[in-house]
C-alpha cells in the first residue's frame, strides 16, 4: 500500500507543479480525443438519425451489425488501419503512420458505431407525434429532422460523451498507430502503459488522476444539464 500512497502523493505534487511532460501528454490526449469525437459526431449522428428515422429492408440487420461493432477490440482496429497506412499499405504514401491523424482515424472507426447505435436509440424513443406535428405545421424534411434531434438532444449528447470517454480511455489504437512518440503522439493511456513497463508509477498515477478527473467533470456537466431539464419538466 505504501507504493500506492507514495505514488499518489508524488503524482499530486506533479499535478500541482504543472509538470511540462504531464501537460504535453494531457494536451495531446485531449486534442486527439476532441477531433475524433468531433468528426465521429459529425458522421455518426446524421447516420444514426437516418437509420432510426427511415424504414428500409435491411434495417434490423444494419442495427445488428452496428451493435456487433461496439465490441470491436482496439487492437483489431489498430491492425486494420496499420495495414492501410503503413509504407506498404494503400495509403502509405500519405505518411500517416505514427501521427496524431492516424490515431484520429483509428478512433473514428472505434466510436462511429458507438455514436450511431446510441443515436438510433435516442431517436427511436422520440414520440412520432413530434414528426407529424412539425409536418402539419408546414415543416420540410430538414426542419422535421431538426425538431426530432432537438427533442432527442440529451440522448445524442450522451452518445457523444460516451464516445469521448471511449477514445480518451483507449490504449490499443493510440499505441499501434501513434507509436507513443514523446511530445507528438504520447497520450495519457500510452504514457501510463509505458511508465508501468518502466516500473515508474508516479507519472502513471498522475495521469490516471487526470483521466478520472476529466471523466468525472464531463459526467457532472451532463448530469447538471439533464437535472435542470428534469427539474423543469416535473
Amino acid at each position, binding site marked *: 500500500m505504501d507504493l500506492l500512497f507514495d505514488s499518489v502523493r508524488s503524482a499530486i505534487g506533479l499535478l500541482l507543479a504543472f509538470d511540462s511532460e504531464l501537460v504535453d501528454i494531457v494536451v495531446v490526449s485531449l486534442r486527439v480525443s476532441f477531433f475524433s469525437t468531433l468528426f465521429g459526431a459529425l458522421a455518426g449522428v446524421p447516420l444514426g438519425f437516418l437509420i432510426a428515422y427511415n424504414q428500409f429492408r435491411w434495417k434490423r440487420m444494419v442495427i445488428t451489425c452496428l451493435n456487433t461493432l461496439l465490441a470491436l477490440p482496439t487492437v483489431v482496429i489498430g491492425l486494420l488501419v496499420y495495414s492501410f497506412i503503413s509504407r506498404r499499405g494503400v495509403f502509405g504514401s500519405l505518411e500517416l503512420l505514427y501521427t496524431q491523424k492516424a490515431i484520429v482515424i483509428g478512433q473514428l472507426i472505434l466510436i462511429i458505431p458507438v455514436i450511431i447505435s446510441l443515436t438510433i436509440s435516442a431517436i427511436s424513443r422520440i*414520440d412520432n*407525434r*413530434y414528426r*407529424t*406535428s*412539425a*409536418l*402539419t*405545421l*408546414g*415543416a*420540410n*424534411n430538414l*426542419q422535421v429532422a431538426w*425538431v426530432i434531434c*432537438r*427533442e432527442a438532444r440529451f440522448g445524442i449528447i450522451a452518445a457523444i460523451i460516451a464516445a469521448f470517454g471511449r477514445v480518451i480511455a483507449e490504449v490499443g489504437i493510440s499505441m499501434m498507430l501513434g507509436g507513443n512518440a514523446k511530445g507528438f503522439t504520447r497520450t495519457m493511456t500510452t504514457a501510463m502503459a509505458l511508465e508501468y513497463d518502466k516500473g515508474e508509477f508516479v507519472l502513471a498515477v498522475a495521469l490516471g488522476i487526470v483521466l478520472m478527473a476529466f471523466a468525472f467533470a464531463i459526467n457532472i456537466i451532463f448530469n447538471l444539464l439533464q437535472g435542470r431539464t428534469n427539474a*423543469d*419538466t416535473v
Partner: protein
Amino acid sequence: MPTLFELSGLIKDYGVRRVLDINNLSLEKGGIYALRGANGAGKSTLLSLLAFLETPTGGKIIFNGQEVNYGTGSHLYQLRQKVVLVDQSPLMFSGSVYHNVEFGLRVRKIGRVERKQIVEKALEQVGMLGFIDHDASKLSGGETKRVALARGLAVAPDVLLLDEPAANVDLENQRILFEIINRINKEGSTSIIYSTHQFPVDEQPAHQILILDKGKLHFDRRCNIFTASVKVANGEKSVCRLAGCAIELELSNTVLASVKDTFYLFINPEKIELLNSTTAPPENSFGVEVLNLTRKEKRVEYTVHIGKELLISSTYRSYKENPVYLGQGVMIHLPEDAISVYPLKHGQEIN
C-alpha cells in the same frame, strides 16, 4: 359553396386490416364538419389522410380541385401549408408557449416582429396570452389543447383538422374550445373538420355530421339519431320508445346491454329495408309515406315520416328493381343490425 375535399374510393389498410373504406365524400369550403364514430372507427386515419400525413392504400383525394399526388414530396409539402391537424393528445415542443406557437411561422420564414404579433393574436384567440412565456411542458391538458389550437391558428390554414378536441378535457374547457372553433369559422374562411366519439350536441358546432363506423361512412346528415327509452323490458327483448316518434321498436337485450333506460339510438339508413307488400312484415316493420326522393351518385335516398324524418338509403339498382314514388305508402323494416345504441349523457336529449 366550392368543394374543398373530394374523396373517391378511398381505402386505407394497415397490414391486412382495412381501417377506412369511403366510396364518395364531398366537403365544401367554409364548413364545419363533425366526424363521429366509436374508437377505432377510422376517424383519426381519415383526418391524417386529409392532412396529407398518410398515403391512402387506394382511391384518390382531390383538394381544391387538384388531385393529390403522393409520389411527390414537394407537392405534399405545398398542400400541408394549407391544412393543419391538431392531434388528439398534442405534444408541445421543448421550450416556451411562444416558441411552440411561432414554430409554423418560423418555418414559413416570417419576420420576428410580425411573428410576435401573430403569436400574440393566436394566443389571445384561445385565451392563453397570459401563458406566452410559460414552459409549454408544464401546461394542463386543456391548456395544452388550446395552445396546440393556437399553434395551428397562427399559420392561418385554409383547413383546420381537430382530432377529438373535446377528449380528456373538462366540460368548461370543452365549451371554450367549441366557442373558439365556432368563432374561427365565423370570423375567417377556415374550414373545420373535427372528430368526436361523443354525440355532437348543441354547443358543438357542425354544419354537417359525418358518421364513421368500422371505416365506412354511413350517412352524411344529422338524421336518424333519436333519443330512446325502454318502455317495457320482458325476457330477452325490450320494447323501446323513440322520443317524438310514432313508432316503438322491439330490441333484444343484448343490443341494449351497453346502455341504461334512456339512450341514443342511431338507425343506419343503408340497412333499412323496403318491403314488398306481398310478404308478411317481420317485427319492427312500419307503414310510412315517402316525403322526399333524391338520387346521389349510385344511391337513392328517401325521406319518410315516423313522427320525425327518417332517412333511407338504397342502391340505385334496387330502386330500379322496386321503384318508389313521392307520396307513395311503403312498408319499411328496421332490422337489429341497422340499429346502434349509445349511452346518453345528462342534458343531451335530442328533442
